[in-house]
């Protein structure tokens, strides 16, 4: 009998895992004892960290796109389609009418985050973002014309993809506007939902003095309630109203509805054992990346490391051995502190981050990694 592994979602986690399994299970795949199917609703893989650079004219959205045909090992069955139902009792995935369902022996959910700007009245009309291709290009067009006024960066949704990116954006905007001679005519304000500037207290403690040095205004305990695009104001649940000329936000995020419908967790995030990444509510189901509710950042590095763990565990299970690989919370992030300097953090469940002093070398390391990411996606790095 052929065991069937199905991965739903071809972001960093799903793609790295597919290529990891192609390598790890090569003998079983060659013998026909195992099949691995990667399901994604877009024929391209998208590397989202590119989007941070788009508003500043340094990258194009296409720089973050590659066809799965070029990226995924030929031993993997690729299915470009959208799953419409997950039945964890029957171990079956449904698609649209007329499209054959898929039965699985092992399911990995790597469906990632979706933007939900409509949760906040006025946000879709009044706010820009760099968390989507179209958002990043729209913001670029606006930012290139922006030479004076109030620039507000508001973090609305948490958890959100890449927790460092809001800090990076204001640091880069500050530097970019200084280089272009407009900084004195632009006020930059950064808002965050809790009482500090970042969810992780160690990163918040590091970032706050830099914001003060750079004259970046801070509003904490600011949970956006509504945006008035005509008056150009954003109002918080806490009663603070800010004027803006350019509003950039991190919109609310959510997972896909199918996960809640399948009883696997709330808001599209799968309840998992944070070490084994096994779903708590169903057998033979793993989740990884943003989809796994582990409490660690929604970052590509997390998805990458978790994919390695799930790959090892699946191989053990398929070979009838105890699965021993576990995820220790490892997270790695570069944090741009300007247009030519960056910091770096590495942490896990037990060890907190300690941001490295910003340097040009770390900035180039980040850009170099973004280029070599395509080796990561192929399972080579």
């Amino acid at each position: 009998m052929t065991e069937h592994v199905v991965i739903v979602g071809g972001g960093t986690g799903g793609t790295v895992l597919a290529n990891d399994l192609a390598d790890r299970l090569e003998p079983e795949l060659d013998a026909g004892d195992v099949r691995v199917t990667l399901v994604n609703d877009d024929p391209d893989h998208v590397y989202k960290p590119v989007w941070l650079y788009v508003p500043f004219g340094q990258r194009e959205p296409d720089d973050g796109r590659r066809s799965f045909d070029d990226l995924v090992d030929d031993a993997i069955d690729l299915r470009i389609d959208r799953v419409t139902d997950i039945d964890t009792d029957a171990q079956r995935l449904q698609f649209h009418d007329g499209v054959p369902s898929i039965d699985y022996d092992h399911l990995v959910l790597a469906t990632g985050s979706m933007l939900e700007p409509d949760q906040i009245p006025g946000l879709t009309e009044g706010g820009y973002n760099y968390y989507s291709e179209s958002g990043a290009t729209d913001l670029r067009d606006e930012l290139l014309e922006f030479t004076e006024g109030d620039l507000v960066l508001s973090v609305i949704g948490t958890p959100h993809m890449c927790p460092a990116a809001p800090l990076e954006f204001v640091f880069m905007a500050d530097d970019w506007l200084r280089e272009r001679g407009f900084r004195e005519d632009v006020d930059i304000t950064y808002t965050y939902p809790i009482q500090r500037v970042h969810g992780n207290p160690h990163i918040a403690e590091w970032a706050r003095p830099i914001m003060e040095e750079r004259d970046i205004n801070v509003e904490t305990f600011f949970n956006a309630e509504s945006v008035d695009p005509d008056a150009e104001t954003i109002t918080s649940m806490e009663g603070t109203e800010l004027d803006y000329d350019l509003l950039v936000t991190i919109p609310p995020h959510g997972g896909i509805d199918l996960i809640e419908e399948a009883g696997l967790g709330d808001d599209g995030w799968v309840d998992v054992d944070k070490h084994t990444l096994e779903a708590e509510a169903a057998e033979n189901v793993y989740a990884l990346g943003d989809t796994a509710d582990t409490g660690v950042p929604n970052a590509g590095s997390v998805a990458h490391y978790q994919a390695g763990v799930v790959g090892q565990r699946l191989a053990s299970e398929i070979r009838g051995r105890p699965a021993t690989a576990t995820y220790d919370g490892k997270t790695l992030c570069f944090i741009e502190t300007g247009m030519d300097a960056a910091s770096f953090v590495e942490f896990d469940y037990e060890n907190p981050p300690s941001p490295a002093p910003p340097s040009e070398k770390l900035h180039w390391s980040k850009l170099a990694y973004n280029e070599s990411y395509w080796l990561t996606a192929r399972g080579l790095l």
Partner: protein
Amino acid sequence: MSMTDIEPDETVDARGAACPGPLMDLIGKIRSAESGDVIRLLSDNDQSLTDVPEWAEEAGNELLVVEEFDDHNAFYVEKA
């Protein structure tokens, strides 16, 4: 420790979540609640003991009571 007979309108179980997850879970639930609703937040993160009172005061919501249990705390917050 104070026990309460307050009946919450909704409960958010954020036990096991790392900071600031519990507070963000509470804020998310308050966001969709009606004025006067009482939300009960269950958290085993000690940071919630300072995060939740600070945010409740900042947002004008009332922290009615905190029940302390051996392995977690229960925060009752009434939406203004």
